[in-house]
């Protein structure tokens, strides 16, 4: 372990961080001000919690889509006055932010957009709807033709709600423009994450997560895309010069499972403190997000297809996730897979068994499930498990 460089530890790695990273790491504060200004000039804001929210419809309605807070431990005690303690921390945190009015994006939102993904979320949304106008989409939990027809009806219902709330008309033309804009964002996000296909990765998993997290709160999509593209170019240039926070033999880890963000980054941080390099986030804020909308054909149907095929564990069956993880393992030359599941997240916790069986069946990929929450109470214990896991992966590499 001693011979390995650790992320952000060496002065050299600290000095040569891509210049744009600094700018993106302060994006959140700037975005709050930009959002306030936009509101004052009459723009409408729609807050979302989940990747299933069809953002194109919000954009086509002329409103600003923003991700709402839900990745911090801080508001959880407040949420537990109402919600059961054993519930998943993401649901408790989201609700806690709302009732304590500590998420500026929630504060500025004119409408909340939510979906019936897991049981915990949909029942929490019933309570959230008492605080702010909330539109709940009934998300089917199977990915077939009948489900698609149903989902299309739900998209049309959302269009009517947005048109009525914001007194606008969502035309096919505006939908097509929104698709182009958001596909541009997806292309940019994919290009950024793909820099980690290089060995060693030119950016640490923690820094990559910071970027992915902060850009979710951006008000101006075009500006955010420009910023990300600039960062990608800088990282590729660093990589060309052989600069990386990691040494070539740092175990390359793919993180799959529940959504992670700043504040719920404990496992990413520990993996990299123990000498691993998180090269790929398969989760919602990461690679699950880069799948584009088909640009030919009926725009609304293409949007419906794109969102319905998201491989979240709330779908049954969810073969898409097995395929995606397997593909990313190859594309990112991954040495090990860590499946992060939140306590109380039944769907991801159960699906972990299926994923382990799938990954260890063919390629015998080292695999570890970690079930935890946002608190630091198990940090030392997790450190032992993660360090032992990386020792195991290192032993396998040495044997090759």
């Amino acid at each position, binding site marked *: *372990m*001693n011979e390995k460089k650790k992320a952000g530890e060496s002065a050299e790695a600290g000095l040569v961080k891509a210049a744009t990273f600094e700018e993106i790491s302060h994006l959140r504060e700037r975005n709050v001000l930009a959002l306030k200004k936009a509101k004052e000039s009459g723009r409408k804001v729609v807050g979302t919690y989940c990747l299933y929210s069809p953002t194109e419809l919000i954009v086509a309605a002329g409103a600003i889509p923003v991700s709402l807070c839900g990745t911090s431990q801080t508001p959880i005690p407040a949420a537990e006055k109402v919600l059961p303690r054993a519930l998943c921390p993401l649901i408790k945190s989201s609700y806690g932010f709302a009732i304590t009015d500590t998420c500026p994006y929630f504060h500025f939102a004119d409408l909340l957009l939510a979906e019936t993904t897991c049981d915990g979320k949909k029942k929490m949304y019933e309570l959230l709807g008492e605080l702010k106008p909330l539109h709940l989409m009934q998300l089917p939990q199977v990915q077939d033709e009948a489900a698609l027809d149903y989902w299309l009806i739900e998209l049309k219902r959302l269009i009517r709600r947005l048109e009525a709330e914001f007194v606008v008309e969502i035309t096919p033309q505006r939908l097509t423009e929104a698709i182009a804009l958001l596909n541009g964002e997806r292309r940019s996000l994919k290009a950024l994450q793909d820099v980690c296909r290089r060995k060693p990765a030119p950016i640490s998993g923690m820094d990559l997560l910071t970027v992915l997290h902060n850009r979710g709160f951006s008000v101006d999509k075009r500006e955010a895309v420009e910023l990300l593209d600039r960062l990608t170019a800088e990282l590729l240039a660093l990589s060309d010069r052989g600069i990386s926070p990691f040494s070539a033999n740092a175990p390359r880890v793919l993180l799959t499972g529940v959504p992670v963000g700043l504040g719920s980054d404990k496992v990413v941080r520990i993996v990299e403190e123990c000498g691993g390099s998180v090269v790929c986030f398969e989760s919602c804020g990461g690679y699950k997000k880069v799948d584009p909308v088909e640009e030919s054909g009926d725009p609304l149907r293409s949007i419906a297809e794109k969102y319905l095929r998201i491989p979240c564990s709330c779908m049954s069956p969810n073969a898409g996730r097995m395929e995606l993880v397997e593909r990313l393992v190859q594309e990112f030359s991954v040495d090990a897979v860590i499946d992060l599941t939140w306590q109380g997240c039944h769907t991801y916790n159960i699906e972990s068994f299926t994923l382990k069986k799938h990954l260890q069946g063919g390629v015998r990929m*080292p*695999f570890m499930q970690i*079930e*935890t929450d946002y608190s630091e*109470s*198990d940090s*030392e*214990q997790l450190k*032992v*498990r993660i*360090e*032992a*896991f990386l*020792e*195991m992966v290192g*032993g*396998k590499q040495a*044997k090759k």
Partner: protein
Amino acid sequence: MLTAGIDIGSTGTKAVLFDGEVRGAAMVPTGWDPKSAGLAAFHQALAAAGLAEGAVQQIVGTGYGRVSLPIFDRKVTEITCHARGAYHLFPDTRTVVDIGGQDSKVIALDGEGRVADFIMNDKCAAGTGRFLQVMAGVLDVSLDELGAIAVGADPVQISSMCTVFAESEIIGMLARGVAKGRIAAGIFDSIARRIQGLAGRVALSDQVTFSGGVALNAEICRAIGAGLGVSLSVPAAPQFVGALGAALLGYEQ
């Protein structure tokens, strides 16, 4: 080459000296100061072997306290160390069950003593040495007596896995007049079930080594062996397997 392995666990700190064979070993309680405990175990092992500190060429630290000692040349987790130690003692070992003071783990080994997969209990103390200690306390017996009174008793069903809830459950049983021996047997059964649950998540072999201080208790060995359907290999000094593994890893470097 003489190496030392020091395993600073949550309850006990163990040191083993190795130069091709075990030259000395010592164990002290960890207490509140893992740093002093590590040094004390090391110095006691040296004294037992009649060797000087300067003769040790490589010191490998493991266990929860491994971060606390500056004298370590290398730090390795107890999972890798237990696998290596068990493989040395029983070369046919393909599975290690380790129950320590505050955690329990099941480790799958490849044919060369390397970790192939492992599973560890989450942050609660269910089914660990601490669990046994608390339960012995409720029954007002020592750990040795807990084993002795369980022999041949018909085990009661203890359904709570959480240490705190299991304590309340047992207090309830005592109030109803359930015999201590039956409760003791029930406690061992509940730990065995917990290990069975963990073992279900890694590929289990029929060559299982049981390490950690809890393995000193013959009744728990019987319960776990019966639960897993195998006969366990139990080292003469099961608490030292991790420290031995650490010394071996230093020796092989």
